[in-house]
């Protein structure tokens, strides 16, 4: 997994509450057995007109100024619904590395960290302010430092954010979760030998 440390990039707004993973990537694209190549399916039903090809001019992210986006600005409960990891895969393949929102759905939040993506929870009024700023200024960029847990806006103001230290460490190092766990393999074996669990009977 690619480590995530610091990023400066274009911000795009997605002004919708409760964006579910069915919207992030609709079901017809979950039939693939590959892990990459999902960029064209991101927000498919919103992004294209009914022909599935023509970009929908009403979809804000389609505007020219948001091309090359790497930071998505979103609303409450982003990523709710289905557990499909295809949602972070599609965002990642489209170029998005950071999602800023007041809150995230639990499974989506975890899935991000397994794909080198940083979801950042920010207070609702900060998100509101960023929505205003990004729309007011063409080419609006943010600089995000995971090491410092800070976001710097174009006018130089600094927004700090909280993140669990273990998740931060994993992202900074791009650690493979399975590798981490297998360092404790003897403990897994010991647990299985103890057979303390009637629930483990097969």
């Amino acid at each position: 997994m690619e480590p995530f440390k610091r990023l400066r990039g274009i911000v795009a707004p997605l002004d919708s509450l409760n964006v579910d993973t069915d919207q992030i990537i609709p079901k017809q694209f979950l039939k693939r057995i590959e892990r990459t190549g999902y960029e064209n399916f991101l927000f498919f039903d919103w992004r294209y007109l009914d022909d599935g090809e023509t970009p929908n001019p009403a979809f804000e992210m389609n505007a020219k100024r948001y091309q090359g986006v790497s930071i998505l600005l979103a609303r409450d409960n982003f990523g709710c619904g289905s557990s499909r990891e295809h949602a972070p895969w599609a965002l990642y393949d489209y170029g998005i590395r950071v999602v800023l929102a007041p809150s995230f759905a639990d499974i989506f939040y975890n899935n991000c960290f397994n794909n080198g993506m940083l979801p950042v929870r920010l207070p609702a009024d900060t998100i509101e302010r960023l929505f205003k700023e990004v729309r007011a200024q063409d080419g609006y960029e943010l600089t995000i430092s995971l090491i410092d847990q800070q976001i710097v806006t174009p006018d130089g103001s600094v927004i700090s954010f909280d993140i669990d230290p273990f998740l931060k460490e994993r992202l900074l190092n791009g650690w493979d979760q399975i590798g981490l766990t297998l360092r404790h393999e003897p403990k897994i074996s010991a647990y299985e030998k103890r057979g303390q669990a009637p629930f483990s009977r097969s």
Partner: protein
Amino acid sequence: MAKNIYEKIWDAHLVHEEPGQDAILYIDRHFVHEVTSPQAFEGLRLTGRKVRRPELTFATMDHNIPTTDRSRPIDDPLSAQQVETLAQNCRDFGVRCFDMHDRRSGIVHIIGPELGITQPGQTIVCGDSHTSTHGAFGALAFGIGTSEVEHVLATQTLLQRRSQTMEIRVDGKLPVGVTAKDVILAIIGKIGTAGGTGYVIEYTGSVIRALSMEGRMTVCNMTIEAGARAGLISPDATTTAYLRGREFIPTDPSFEVLAAEWIRWASDAGCRYDRTLVLRGEDIEPQVTWGTSPGMVTTIRGRTPVLAELTDANERLAAERALGYMGLPEGTPMTEVAVNRIFIGSCTNARIEDLRDAAKVAKGHKVHSGIDEAIVVPGSQQVKLQAESEGLDRIFVEAGFEWRESGCSMCLAMNADKLEPGDRCAATSNRNFEGRQGKGGRTHLVSPAMAAAAAIRGRFTDVRDWTFK
């Protein structure tokens, strides 16, 4: 110290814990389906890893499979490839697989309990958000992503952090005509689709105790729609009675010994929760969703919202957008909303009791002329056989419903069963998201009895006033 059931299961499954890190939790049962597993098995191949405990891993195909004639190959080549990929992965890695021709097959969250693979006190995961269903048995069960599926296959463990706990107590008694589906929709309507975020919910109270295992599964199933990590119900005599004699229940030790062990997982008297919410069963009415999120719900006597009455600007915007998508004016009484498609099925509501409820309403009636298609999709082949032995299939067919093979079907429309743009569907499933059942399709979530009543009347109707024949 008195512990709640979540704390008991968590403590008993801790493999390793150190400050500042996620704990390593042992996983007792891992369910696998064709959509969220191919990349996980591929990951094992690329790293030369094996499935650590294949005997604790159970696979089935449910999302892509046709609900029509199964003697023919699957039409969609991508669906066929995904189904075959799982079959091949199971052969390569030694995992037990119930394919669609196996009489034990069905939706993964229906067959786990039905076969007795799901048991109290277990930790259960699956790459599927509705894994919360298994919590009805007093198991800690939740959905995971594909990277985590690979992690569980490789290590039989998962990295987890302890959740907060919320008790949702439903006191009193449910009125006649009000079901488990109405209970959970009313709860989501109350706490919102993010109301459970960060929590594991335990459902308690006399209404929950009085529910059958099937009703409890419906409640736990939609816990994810409230944003919670998992939902569970402490095991009791209803739980153990359901499990007796099921195929994967061990025969040694005796059932009595097992049942006594299971009951001990129940929350201790005087245990604590981080938050408690209380509802009265008597206050709950049949529910219908009006919007594009399960929290956008009202009662059958309710109306779609009036935008000017919504005080929160973001909420108002969301409601306006949802009404636009749903093609419904503000303030529309739900009983005036006409539908043209009916879907009775899904891991939420396709067990035998659900089909009995729907058949009881449909019996002796005819599907309304305004309905273009009404399908009944049993949750598993066993449910299908049971329903047929009770003659439910004949009741449905005589009324004008189609009787199908089991599977996820039009809950998420990955197979051929889907809504067309503009279709309006009364569905017993769990999600009314935009396009969930087909692009441009409009979904209203209801109980099986309410869906059957909508099929007969062509519009939503209060099942409490139904004339049963």
